[in-house]
């Protein structure tokens, strides 16, 4: 949308005003995250910039909140809990989700619309309602307050993302490849692992990332479903923000921002790879 040389003054003014407005909105989107990072190095227990920090005086900065985050059992316990729950939930979601997405992508699936609606529903139903229902039901069957209860709940919440991403990759999948493999004598299993899986892998991986972040960030369901033994990182942050507000939260937040940058980077690489592949293969 470069400005043409013949643009009138009014158009010029509007062009730059519009860009400024967009800049401000993008600033609104990103600024809160950027503010958190320097504040987490605060030497004081304050949630705002101290005069020393504004003067860029090294005395105003310290790693004490990170030290607290990485040594205090109040934070380490939840961190390890999160790391113990999210991968297992992701594994369940990806295994079952990929299988089902492959099934759904074949033609002639009866009740496809209804099945799809059910499988996507955990993403649409408000978390508080899922949490309420799961709390009621899982306490009936004795899973409330257990590790597996939380894992199963998180897997259910992550599945829609796997379904959506994998189905999207399968739309562009050339079916004659599996037919070719079959005609060359490969069984269904071999065809899947050797031909189909490598091609849909980017979709599976991005689905896995979504499922992982869903579980890793999730707080409402675990708040109701978990016992103290399943306290996760977001849960600890939630209690921290509600009750004893400590600046260690900002250190935790910065660590989590780093994790999301990492995830976003991985996704971007995957997207580029699939774009490159699509560009290479004849349409």
């Amino acid at each position, binding site marked *: *949308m470069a400005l043409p040389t013949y643009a009138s003054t009014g158009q010029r003014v*509007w062009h730059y005003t*519009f*860009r400024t*407005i967009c800049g401000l*909105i*993008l600033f*609104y*989107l*990103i600024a*809160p*995250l950027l*503010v*958190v990072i320097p504040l987490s190095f605060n030497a004081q227990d304050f*949630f705002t910039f101290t005069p020393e920090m504004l003067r860029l005086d090294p005395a105003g900065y310290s790693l004490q909140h990170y030290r607290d985050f990485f040594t205090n059992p109040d934070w380490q316990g939840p961190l390890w809990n999160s790391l113990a729950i999210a991968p297992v939930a992701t594994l369940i979601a990806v295994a*079952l*989700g990929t*299988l*089902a997405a492959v*099934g*759904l992508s*074949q033609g*002639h*699936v009866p009740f496809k619309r209804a*099945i*799809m*609606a*059910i499988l996507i*529903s*955990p993403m649409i*139903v*408000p*978390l*508080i*309602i*899922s*949490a*309420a*229902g799961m709390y*009621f*039901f899982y306490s009936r069957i004795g899973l409330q307050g257990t590790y597996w209860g939380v894992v199963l*709940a998180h897997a*259910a919440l992550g*599945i829609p*993302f796997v379904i*959506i991403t994998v189905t999207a990759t399968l739309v562009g999948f050339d079916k004659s490849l599996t037919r070719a493999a079959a005609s060359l004598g490969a069984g269904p299993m071999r065809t899947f692992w050797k031909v189909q899986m490598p091609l849909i892998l980017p979709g599976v991986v*991005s689905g896995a990332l979504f499922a992982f*972040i869903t579980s890793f*960030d999730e707080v*409402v369901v675990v708040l*109701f479903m978990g016992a103290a033994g399943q306290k996760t990182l*977001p849960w600890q*942050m939630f209690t921290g*923000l509600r009750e004893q*507000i400590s600046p260690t939260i*900002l250190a935790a*937040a910065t660590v*989590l921002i780093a994790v*999301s940058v990492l995830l*976003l980077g991985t996704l971007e690489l995957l997207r580029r790879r699939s774009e490159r592949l699509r560009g290479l293969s004849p349409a």
Partner: protein
Amino acid sequence: MADATITGGLPTGREARPASPEPMLAADGTLLRASLARSLRRQKARALLLIAPLLLFILVTFVLPIGDMLFRSVENAIVPETLPRTVAALRDDPAEVPGEAVFDALYTDLVVAEEYKIHTQLGTRLNYEFGGASSLFRGAGRHVGKFDTDVYADQFGDANPAFADPGRWAAWMADDAVRAALPQTTDAYDAWAKFTVDVHGDDPAEEDLGDFVYAALYRDLAAGAQPPGLPSVDVSGFEAVSLKQQFVDDDEGWGEPEIWTTLRTFSPRFTAGYYLNAVDLKIGPQGIELREGSDRIYIQLFIRTLILSVTITATCILLGYPVAFLLASLPMRSANLLMILVLLPFWTSLLVRTSAWKVLLQQQGVINDLLVWAGVLSDSGRLVMINNQTGTIIAMTHILLPFMILPLYSVMKGIPPSYVRAAKSLGANDWTAFWRVYFPQSVPGIGAGSILVFILAIGYYITPELVGGTKGVFISNRIAYHISDSLNWGLAAALGTILLAVVLLLYWAYDRLVGIDNVKLGG
């Protein structure tokens, strides 16, 4: 399918079908039609088999829990299960304050409930409908053991020592003829024997019987029962105790109609009471009526949830549209770069973003500090931007904005730029070209984004809880409160079901408009 043209071996003499009447055969000699049908069937079965594990998983871990919630929103078994005899007796007694028979039943029920310590739960449950029920049941539970019914045990013991012997009782109660002759006694004895074993772990044949069993025996005998095998005793001279009087002496509330109306209303196993409560109604003596002013909070809360969600959606459109427009019109390379600014918040933990807003918006927070430092505000005039609706709107707009920008962007990407150019070449100015040509084509994106943002906003819990204070909370916060603090699960379930109905309606609309399989995640 091709079925219409491959009609098996039917000899067709019709002119319209000059094709060969010979049946088409597959390579293995079977009819091609049958062979195709079989392979199609096999394909369907394979697809279903692949989907089945996940479908089963979702049904068990997600759909069943939601069903359980729906069930709980109407379920009311606690009254008939805790007070089975009272509920049965009330059915035969239409009086405002029932007679002795109901109080006799209530006495037995309460003694049993007190042993299992479940009478307080019932009191709590009924307190949702009638304030005061909780203290009535608590009080009665404490005092029911000290009622004057011990006179029956003494009088029976004096009449014949066999009545004080648990071993003899156990023998009598094993005799079907006795059981048939003494229905109330049998019922009371069985209940007593059950909690003696369950709660105390004792042998009923060795423990002294509860007073309420003797009271039941007195009632049976006074009604003219003649049990075979029991020592004969003339109860007409016995001193009788009015249990109604005992209850009313304990708490006058038992002698007033309110508690009985409540009990009668909530005797059935299923009730609409929670739903009525969720929309500020209740079942009064004259049918459905509005709750008192101070209890009328839910309609207002639903309306506030809707207004706040609409406001947030509108703000998202207002802020998202220009950004999506810019992203769609920039060259790919710079658009991708700016897209990171949209995607990074999208990928960042909700708690991180909420804590950031908490830090920014506080009265001693970054924004206020900045404004004071710049001289815009005086130190005493700091803005209150958190723990109110402003805080909720600012923070939630920020959190949901990517959900508006992404669908808008993908729709705008598909609008050919030549249309706008054509409009301009035909003499339209910038505004007309945008408003009459570009904007109408971007409306589907606004629709998709709005429904998505609205669905997400209406069910939000964490952010309003942390930055919303008391005025900026949603219906979800009330649901959470009822689950974990007030423990009124039925009401939580009813509120949840209403919210779920609204969301599903929107989900259906979204599916019609966009199609659920067209949901795109992050570019």
